[in-house]
């Protein structure tokens, strides 16, 4: 199952992913209501992405009082029956990264659904810092990238 990942070496913290997510999902530019969020660290600067990771054993599912959250055996995604959700935000509290977002319009707690398989945030990222890919591919890409950087930095021949 694919997930959204960030390359912190590329991300400039522009936040366009958040704005476009809110425009796409809610028809208004309101970054605080986006399903993807950046925690900006201007000092480093390497910014952290907060978005649902569709965990293997999701804590949000355990926390949900209405038992509306479940991992789909077909897609592998953590899915939620929004009809039943009453916005208690227990899932958000239990989530290790706090990914679920309280939607003030519907009074429900929502998470990233990858826009049906073609995430807007990935498409608009001006630095191509966001990737929507299989975790194993992301891992291989990251290792290759670090190796390239190491060889360049040390004056090596590159890989």
């Amino acid at each position: 199952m694919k997930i959204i990942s960030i390359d912190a070496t590329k991300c400039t913290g522009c936040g366009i992913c958040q704005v476009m997510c809110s425009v796409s999902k809610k028809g208004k530019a309101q970054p605080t209501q986006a399903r993807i969020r950046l925690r900006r660290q201007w000092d480093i600067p390497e910014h952290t992405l907060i978005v649902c990771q569709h965990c293997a054993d999701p804590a949000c599912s355990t926390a949900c009082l209405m038992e509306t959250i479940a991992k789909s055996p077909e897609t592998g995604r953590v899915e939620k029956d929004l009809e039943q959700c009453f916005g208690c935000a227990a899932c958000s509290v239990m989530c290790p990264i706090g990914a679920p977002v309280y939607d003030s319009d519907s009074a429900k707690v929502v998470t990233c659904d990858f826009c049906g398989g073609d995430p807007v945030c990935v498409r608009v990222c001006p630095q191509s810092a966001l990737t929507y890919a299989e975790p194993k591919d992301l891992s291989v890409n990251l290792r290759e990238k670090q190796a390239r950087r190491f060889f360049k930095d040390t004056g090596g021949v590159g890989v």
Partner: protein
Amino acid sequence: MSGEVRNHSTSLLRTAVVDLKKQTIKLLETAATDAPSPFGVIGLAEELRSIWSKQVPILQVFAGPLTGTGAPGSGSYGFSWRGAQPQEATTTFCEGRLGAMMKHAGIDSIVFFGCANLPVYLNIAEEDMELCDASALRKLGIKELTDSLLFDNDWDDAAVLALAAADETGIAELVADYRFPIGWEGLAAVFAQMNLQGIVVAGAMGLEIKEPEEFVAACVAVYAHKNSGIVDDDRHYKEVATACYLSPWHQNGGVELAEDAAVEDAFTSLDEETLILRLLGLYWDERFPLPDRLAHGARFLTLVSGNSWSGDRLKEAVRQLKRTRPAVLEKGGVGK
């Protein structure tokens, strides 16, 4: 107010008028339909005329109708000011998060006038606006001052503009969000003259996009075109400007200063097309990756407002603005 959605065409244009001498803040609301141009509030609201004609120093920070909407490079916001020297009203534009955050806080413009007796800064946390004492912050460096300004604002991701001593030289400089210098000497001097140490703004209001699907598609098209020539070298990216809403095709490592660096009125120094785009809230220049920037600007305005705009109509609007502006902003003008 966090749940409020602001609409470019129908919402009230809000201007916070800050009297630094008396330490008061008034909120002026103008119907968007009364605004004299598609560019929204830019010191032209009738209520502001008398202030502009009588007060020195005076400074206005204003955002355009597309500022903060998420259109590529939609972080353009402007400053108009008249200080003791020079006396002429000057307008300039820069990019960053402050204008966008003002819009999210429900403010289109802030007007400061007079001089505070002691250093102060303006703290806006959505509906709460207050002038705070900055006496203890006077000699702090950029990082310490920004940290201190943020500490008093309860929001996570507030935008900050701070007047602080630059680390290397000690010369006072306006810096946005820790690292982006807004380097016009005249502007920093007006802040210093007013005893205004900084502005902190945060808010969570939504800005309505009338045609969200087409708007997203238009943004994707611009970014796709821009990204088609991108180089996959991570060291390249560290040199790229890094603030929300900065034009992603700027690659000089900070807020653009080259063409606006001189204390020169943007209304006379910028070409008509660039001026229109800046007034709309788009910090686009010749590096915009698609042909006919003005048509794209008009299209984004159309998608946001729901009213049909063309490049020609925008040109007519800016010419009208240029004709009326001197009477409003210059000393001894209409409001005298």
